[in-house]
């Protein structure tokens, strides 16, 4: 195991985060704060409780998940895309690091950054809304698992993308709509049929539902199903990464 190699990549990525603090940490915290102000405090105060939870508090897990997904994907995808784009990837490819170590460095750093953002958002939310966390260990577990899974998904996108547009297209065109329609702002029980059933095909529903259960003990789907779906997605990403390195897809010709 080349631990120094993993650490070199990890530290390099984290120092990139420090250099771009405004864009990488403050901007997602600011935009999530705006959601809290508009939906939580302003509109939320006129809305009734959902499953016994105030609307402002109800949207916290969904909003956190929204940031976590988009930040994990964009951090990890940019982290591997940029060396490919600038050519500096040659050094990683010629170094005695295994595929697992490369992924651990890049994905580990992206996930760490997402977790920092998550923690900041939770702290910021406290300013606007009163909330509780019923199952803090589970909450942390979901948080870490989701950050890791979607950072890995971002890594895959970064490998796949051969231009800046492709880098943006999945987060903007797929992840954001799926999150908005995945119950970030509502309980899926509030949807009429057939939308309620159709929504179950949206994987983000399971992430948000499980996460919300960790906060308030309420969920749209069974928490075991949520956990299972998150692991399934992690497994799919791991398989894709394994295939990428086995075939050299878009990195080693």
């Amino acid at each position, binding site marked *: 195991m*080349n631990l*120094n*190699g993993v*650490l*070199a*990549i990890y*530290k*390099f990525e984290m*120092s*990139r985060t420090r*250099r771009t603090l405004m864009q990488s940490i403050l901007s997602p915290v600011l935009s999530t704060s705006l959601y809290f102000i508009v939906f939580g405090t302003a509109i939320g105060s006129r809305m009734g409780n959902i499953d016994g939870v105030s609307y402002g508090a109800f949207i916290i897990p969904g909003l956190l998940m929204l940031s976590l997904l988009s930040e994990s994907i964009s951090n990890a995808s940019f982290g591997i895309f940029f060396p490919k784009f*600038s*050519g*500096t990837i*040659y*050094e*990683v*490819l*010629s*170094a*005695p*690091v*295994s595929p697992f170590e490369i992924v651990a460095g890049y994905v580990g750093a992206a996930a760490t950054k997402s977790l920092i953002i998550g923690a900041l958002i939770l702290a910021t939310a406290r300013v606007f809304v009163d909330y509780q966390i019923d199952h803090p260990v589970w909450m942390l577990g979901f948080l870490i698992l989701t950050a890791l899974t979607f950072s890995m998904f971002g890594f895959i996108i970064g490998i796949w993308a051969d231009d800046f547009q492709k880098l943006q297209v999945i987060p903007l065109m797929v992840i954001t709509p799926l999150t908005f329609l995945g119950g970030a702002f509502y309980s899926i029980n509030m949807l009429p049929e057939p939308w309620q059933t159709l929504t179950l095909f949206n994987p983000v529903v399971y992430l948000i539902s499980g996460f919300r259960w960790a906060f308030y003990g309420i969920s749209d789907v069974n928490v075991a199903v949520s956990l299972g779906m998150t692991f399934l997605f992690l497994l799919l990403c791991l398989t894709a990464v394994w295939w990428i390195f086995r075939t*050299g897809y878009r990195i*080693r*010709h």
Partner: protein
Amino acid sequence: MQSIISIQGVGKSYASGFTALKSIDLEIQRGEIFALLGPNGAGKTTLISIICGIVNATSGKVIADGFDIARDYRQARSQIGLVPQELTTDSFETVWHTVAFSRGLFGKPANPEYLEKILRQLSLWEKRNAKMLELSGGMKRRVMIAKALSHEPSILFLDEPTAGVDVELRRDMWEIVRELRENGVTIILTTHYIEEAEEMADRIGVINRGELMLVEQKTELMQKLGQKQLNLYLQSPLESLPAELAQYNLTLSEDGTQLTYTFDAHQDTTGIAQLMRSLSQLGIDLKDLQSKQSSLEEIFVSLVHGKDV
């Protein structure tokens, strides 16, 4: 001498059907400077990239310092440093950080004393806190070398080390390479500057269209393929080449004042003595004479074109 790199039947074809390398066999000796010479697109970078692990070979195998580059990639790659052709750097990183990153990436624990030594050796110490984007092209090239040396490799690949570099820096670069060799590093450089190969290499391999056309000691190569020319400056101009001289490989300059005799310096009889006698018999007096050995460039052109025709 013991070989440090053994390239056995290495080929590379792409899905498009393009063959970048046909089956290459090559042994690099420990401690030598080997120049891989060839025109653009000959396959030099592809071969280097395969050895360094950036490109997968379609066939064949490479052993670096006793380790198979595919099976024992960790041990093999730890021995190898690569300075790529393109100046690809992380613009916002400082010189120090980017070199320290490379050392870590190659699995070595931090060693500020060693990094200081190589930065001083490459005249980069004063610039250690400068960001890469603040450096000139020549300085960036030095940083690339420092990165490649950061993990103390025993084999160093320099892909077109002086492409786009001014004459002064090129001389500096050659000096650096010689010092490295004195420290026991085996150096493989690619170049399409003949001058560079001629100046630096112990051995030269000529590659063209994915084929290794020859591998020779530099001096032997020059001797083997070196044609010599003897320029004869005449006392009084000739209108045409006398028929008596037709048996010699001679050309007369346009103004008739100079005869050029081309011969093979390694033949037992070069024909010079006979030519001199013939000239004397014809009453052609000489003002001066000068002989010239063909350069590697001329050798190279004749090789590459000879194959093309």
